[in-house]
C-alpha cells in the first residue's frame, strides 16, 4: 500500500517536473509547478514530516506561484526560442 502510494506520487513528481521544464507556455509551467509542490506536500506528509509539508504547501504551492504569476504579468508569457 505504502509502496504503491510512493510510486504513484514519485511518478507524478517526475512527470510534472519534466512537463515544467519542457513547457513553452510559462503560465502553464507555473500552474504545473504548483501541482508539483502539492504533490511534494503529500510526499512530505507521507514521509512523516508534517512541518515541511505545511511549509511546502504554503510557500511552494501558494506564495511562489503568485510571485511567478506576477513576474509573468510584468514580462511575457511565452518563452523565447
Amino acid at each position, binding site marked *: 500500500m505504502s509502496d504503491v502510494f510512493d510510486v504513484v506520487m514519485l511518478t507524478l513528481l517526475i512527470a510534472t517536473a519534466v512537463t515544467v521544464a519542457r513547457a513553452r507556455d510559462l503560465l502553464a509551467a507555473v500552474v504545473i509547478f504548483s501541482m508539483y509542490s502539492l504533490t511534494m506536500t503529500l510526499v512530505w506528509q507521507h514521509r512523516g514530516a508534517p512541518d515541511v509539508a505545511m*511549509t511546502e504547501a*504554503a*510557500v511552494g504551492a501558494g*506564495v511562489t506561484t503568485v*510571485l511567478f*504569476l506576477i513576474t*509573468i504579468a*510584468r514580462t*511575457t*508569457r511565452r518563452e523565447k526560442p
Partner: protein
Amino acid sequence: MRPWSLLLVLLVALPLVAGVATLPPHDAPDAPIHTQVGALYLERGVAETGMKNMVTAVLLNYRGFDTFIEVVVIFTALAAVLALPKGSAPVPKGSAPVPKGSAPVPKGSAPVGKGSSPTSPSAGAARSREDEERPEVASDVPVSPVVRFVVRLLAPFIAMFAVAMLFRGHITPGGGFQAAAVFAAIFIALGLALGQDRAARLVPVDWRPWLQGVAPLAFALVAWIGWRLTGAFLGYPIHDHTAQEAMGFVLEIGIAVGGGVILARVFLEMET
C-alpha cells in the same frame, strides 16, 4: 551542444540514482538517521530543552544559530528586493518579438493585475457594475465577484488557522515559519482579490519598517536575554521553565510576524 548536455545530465543523474539506491529502506530502525545525532536529540531533547515538539527544539535550541542566520537571510533578501531600482523591469517596447497568439505586454504603466490573478473573461463587465455598488474597491482589480467573495469569506478562518499553528507549534507540527507563510498567503490573497490599497491598510504605516525587521530583532533580543541569564549567546535557562517558554514564545511570534511581513512585502514590491 546536445551531446554535451546529455553527458552532463548523466554525470549528475547517475551518482544521484546510485546514492538513492543505496539508501536504507524507509522506517528501517538501524538507518543512520535513527542511530546518530537524531537519536541523541530524541533521547535527551525533552530533558535538555524542556520542549515537547522535537522539531521546535532542534530549530530553536540545538540549531538556534542556524535559525537566527536563516531569519537574517530572508530579511536580507527583502532588503535586496527593496534595493532594486523601480521600473528597471525589461518591459518590451515593441522591439521584442512577441509570438503570435499571445497578447502584447502593455507599454508604459506597469500592467498591474493583468494575468496576476485568475480573471474570467466576463470579469470586466461584472466589475463595472460591482464598482458602482462598492466604491471602496480599487477599480483596477479585475477579479470576479466569486473569487472576491470566497477570499473574503475564507480569510478570517485561514488567519485563525495560522494563529493556531503559531500557538500550538510547541506541541504539534507547525510554528513560526509555517504561520508566517500562511499569514503572508492571506495577505497576498486579499491583495489580489480586494486590491493592494485595502490589503495594505491592514498594517499600520508607522509599524511597517519595524515589522519588516521584527524577526531578526526578536532573535537578537532573545539571544541577548539568554546571554544575560546564562552567560551564553542564545542560551536558554533550562532550570527556569517560565523564562524559557517566554523566550521561545517571543521567537515564534517574531518569526511569524516578521517572516509574514517580509513575504508579503516582497509581493507588494513586485506588484506595484
